[in-house]
Every structure is written in structure tokens, then in C-alpha cells.
């Protein structure tokens, strides 16, 4: 027994040593890995952009947290254009894909520095509450109503989105709704509102999922759904759904327009927000060069987003909530 006790003490000792070593290594490792997250980025971009920026911009090594929508993220657009920004400033961008509602909520809690979303009503509310500033129109595409090729509700080619929805409701044809407070979901609810129909019943299913998932569900169930054109195009080869009602890009009704906006989190509300970098990002992404990159970005051979930040006649309404006037 005493032998065992001695062994035990030895084991405890070794264990403690190992534990301490593990801990110091762990914290070291943690720092290191976090460091390598940042410094790795920094090194990478430094080595690639060192030539021009020896004294480097003051933001080098920082991280910009961008909350955005699944529709911008899943199309691969951000991955395609962000290296340019990261090289230019020696920073890294953490893009977190959420729905528009969740993206704004994360920013509202001060957990992101900048938001890129597509629901003007929610963006306006965000600005009015003081959380977002310096909003810019960024780009647009449009929504399309997609459905099975046999089109049980007979909406193909309709020129009115609201009539199409009414027809779907009248036929009680299966319809998949995002149901997740995203930009697309918000648009869909606005459309039902405009159609004067209150959707409900077995045929109307709220999935509470991202656009890609909603398209999959609609595909499997032969249902209609409202999709942004970008996600639909990037996923079209995987599914059998087809566009039945076009948006404005395909000469459809203007009500299906899908404008994206970008805005910085107000540093007056959240003083930890990386405002400098957020503004640098807004300046970068609304610049002619990057707007052209957005325009050139294709998936399955089709353009997904149409830039609208650069204009001879800037639309001043883009900076302020809808209906705002200085007399308020």
C-alpha cells in the first residue's frame, strides 16, 4: 500500500507538472493560435503588400468583423473580393453569415463592426435607433419566384409578383417560406401584405433556414419559394426549380428589387467598434474598382450582383432612413 501511495504521489507530481506544462503550453498555444490568426494574416499580407507599405497603415493586423446575409456569403462574392481589401490594409475580415435580422442584432449588441444586409426597412430602423451610420447603397440584384416546372398554380410569366402569390394561395400550392426574419423573409412578408393575402394552412411552410436550405426544401417538395437571384443561380445546377416570375433584372416588376446596403456600427454607441476600419471598408467596397469586381463576379456564367454605389448623381436618400428630414 505504501508503495502504491508513493506511486500515487509520483503520479500526482508528474500530473501536476504535465498539467502546468500543458497549461502554459495551452495558454501559449492559445495565444499563438490566436496570434497566428492575426499575425498569420498580417504576415501573409505584409509579405505580399510589403513593397508599398513599409510604414504600413495604422490598422495593420486588426480584424474587421462583418455580419452579413447568407445570400452574399453563400454566393462566394465576399471570398472573391476580400483578399483585395486585406492586402490593401494588412488586415483580416471575419465575415459572419447570418440572416439580415440576426446580422443587425449582432451589430446592435456591439459584436460586429460593420453590416451588409438587404432589408431597407430593418436598416432604417437600425439607423434610427442610433446603431448604424454612414449607410451606402452597395449593389442590387433581384428576387425571383421559383417553383417546379409543372407549375401547379400556373404563375409562369406573370408580370405581377402579388398576383402570382395570390394565385399560389388560391391554388393552395405548396410554398416554402424562409421564416427567419432575413431580408428575403421580410420581402416575402411585404409581398403577401401587398397581395392582401394572409398566408396560412398546410401549403405554407416556414422553414426557419437559410436561402440555400429553403431552395432545397422547395426542390424536394415541389414547392414555390421566393429567392434572391444570386443564391438561386449559384445553386441552380443542384436543383430542378425554375424561375417562374422574374424580378426587375429580367424585366419583372420593380417590387422584386433586392438592394444591398452597407453601414458602419456607430462608435458613439459601441466604443469598441472598429470604426476606422469599417469606414475604410465602406470606402473600399464603394470605390469604382471594387464595384467593377462585384460586377465581374459570376457564378455558373451569370452575373450575380449589380453595383450601384458609383453614380454621377448620388442618391442622398441612401445615407439616411427612409422619410427622414432635417426638420425631424
Amino acid at each position, binding site marked *: *500500500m505504501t508503495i*502504491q*501511495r508513493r*506511486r*500515487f504521489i509520483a*503520479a500526482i507530481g508528474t500530473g501536476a507538472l504535465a*498539467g502546468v506544462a*500543458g497549461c502554459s503550453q*495551452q495558454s501559449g498555444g*492559445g495565444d499563438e*493560435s*490566436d496570434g497566428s*490568426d492575426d499575425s*498569420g*494574416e498580417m504576415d*501573409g499580407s505584409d509579405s505580399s503588400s510589403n513593397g508599398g507599405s513599409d510604414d504600413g497603415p495604422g490598422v495593420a493586423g486588426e480584424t474587421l*468583423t462583418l455580419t452579413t446575409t*447568407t445570400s452574399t456569403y*453563400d454566393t462566394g462574392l*465576399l*471570398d472573391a473580393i*476580400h*483578399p483585395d481589401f*486585406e492586402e490593401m490594409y494588412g488586415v*483580416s*475580415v*471575419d*465575415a*459572419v*453569415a447570418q440572416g439580415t435580422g440576426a446580422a443587425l442584432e449582432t451589430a446592435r*449588441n*456591439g*459584436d460586429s463592426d460593420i453590416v451588409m444586409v438587404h432589408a431597407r426597412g430593418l436598416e432604417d430602423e437600425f439607423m434610427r435607433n442610433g446603431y448604424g451610420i454612414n449607410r451606402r447603397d452597395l449593389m442590387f440584384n433581384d428576387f425571383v419566384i421559383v417553383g417546379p416546372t409543372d407549375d401547379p398554380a400556373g404563375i409562369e410569366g406573370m408580370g405581377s409578383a402579388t398576383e402570382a402569390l395570390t394565385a399560389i394561395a388560391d391554388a393552395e400550392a405548396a410554398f416554402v417560406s424562409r421564416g427567419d426574419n432575413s431580408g428575403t423573409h421580410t420581402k416575402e412578408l411585404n409581398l403577401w401584405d401587398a397581395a392582401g393575402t394572409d398566408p396560412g394552412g398546410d401549403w405554407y411552410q416556414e422553414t426557419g*433556414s*437559410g436561402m*440555400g*436550405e429553403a*431552395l*432545397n426544401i422547395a*426542390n424536394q417538395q415541389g414547392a414555390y419559394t421566393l429567392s434572391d437571384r444570386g443564391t438561386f443561380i*449559384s*445553386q441552380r445546377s*443542384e*436543383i430542378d426549380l425554375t424561375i417562374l416570375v422574374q424580378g426587375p433584372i429580367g424585366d419583372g416588376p420593380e417590387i422584386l428589387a433586392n438592394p444591398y446596403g452597407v453601414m458602419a456600427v456607430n462608435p458613439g454607441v*459601441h466604443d*469598441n467598434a472598429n470604426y476606422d476600419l469599417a469606414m475604410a471598408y465602406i470606402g473600399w467596397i464603394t470605390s469604382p474598382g471594387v464595384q467593377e469586381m462585384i460586377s465581374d463576379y459570376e457564378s455558373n456564367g451569370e452575373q450575380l450582383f449589380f453595383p450601384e454605389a458609383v453614380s454621377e448623381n448620388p442618391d442622398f436618400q441612401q445615407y439616411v432612413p427612409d422619410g427622414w428630414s432635417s426638420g425631424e
Partner: protein
Amino acid sequence: MPLEPAVELLPALLEFPFREGYVTSIIYVSLYVSIIAVSLSTLVSVPVAIVMGFVDFRGKQFVKSVINTGMGFPSVVVGLLVLFAVSNQGPLGSLELIFTKKAMIMSQFVLATPPITAISLAAVTGVEGNVRDAARVLGGTRLDAALVVIKEARYGIATAVLAGFGRAISEVGSVLIVGGNITSSDGISKTRTLTTAVQLEARQGRYETAMVLGAVLVAIVLLVNAVVVRLGDTGGVGR
């Protein structure tokens, strides 16, 4: 190791639409987060289980039922709780942990601790009373008795750690919420794990790649189990 599925999966792996380093980086993040979380959990859980196995105190049954409830705690709820804690508005907000691996470790620690504690406790209490008595009769102290019990219970404790690891690495809800599923634009994972990568692929309808990533996850869990069982057979505690 079953070879045939691996062979079938190979073409799919070759056609992976992923950039170099992407898959290895998400495997790295998965293992990094889960192993640290489970190690921390084990450091807390096993002593707690041993003390609870040896000491009787009032409210012990209550503590037990709290631990058992913790085993069934939904991971999204844990994710939300950790989110509230590490969010800029939360008590730990100033540490800026949100969307980092550290936040993911926190949530997995919360998830893994209850099963490791509960299963270890069951293993410790499952050691027959007469083993304990024999140790005392042979002149051992309480400490010696405890050692004998740990030695007898080592398989159970190993199972507990594996269960905790299984829960941590296969969990998707909380790491998605507190980690944010981030990769940098060069395709290297920052907070994307195998599970959140599967979720992302499934969201985009790429079920085949999702399945392949899922198979990788299963293979890793299998490997870890094999290693631990082997260690238990040869190296074992106190042999």
C-alpha cells in the same frame, strides 16, 4: 478500419471544390477546440466525481440530478448563454471573446462537463464496496482506497472522457452561435469546425461534400476512440 467506404469516398474527395488547406484547417479547429475543452472538463469533472463518490453530504442527490440534467442540455441553449456572456454587452464583453476559438472552448466545456462528471461518478460508485473495504483492511488510508477505486474505475472514466469528447466534437449549435463559422478569405478556417462546415454545405445543397465532411468527422471520432481504448488496454492508470 473498414476500407471499402474509404475507397468509395476517394473520388468525392478528389473532386472537392475546396481550396488547399481548407479541410485540414477545419479539422485542426475541430480538434483544437474539442480537445482543449474536454481536457479542461476532465480536470474539473473527475475530481468532482471522485469526491462525490466518496463523500456523503446533504443535497447530494440534488447535485446528481443537476449534473444529469446538464447531460441533456441543448447545445443551442448553451450557445446562447455563452453568447450572452461573451457578447460586448455581457459580463465578459470586454475580453472580446465573441467569434473566437476561446468562446467555442467555453461553450464546449459547458457541454462536455456534465456527461464526463456523471459517467465518471457512475464508474466510481460502481466499484464494489468490498474492494474499498479490502483496501482499508489491508492497512490503506482513505487515499489508498481512493486510488484502488480509481484504478478499478479507469475504463469507466475513459468512457466518460470519450463521451464528453463525442459530445464536444459532434456538436453544431453552440459553436455556430459563438464561433460564427468564420474562414478567412484565403480559405483557412478560423472558427469553422467540421460540423459547421457540414451545415454550411448542406445549406447550399451540396449534400455530397457535406457527406464527405461528415465521414471525415466520423473517422476522427473513431480514431480517437481507438487510441483511447488502446491506451486503456496497455498503458492504463497505475499499472
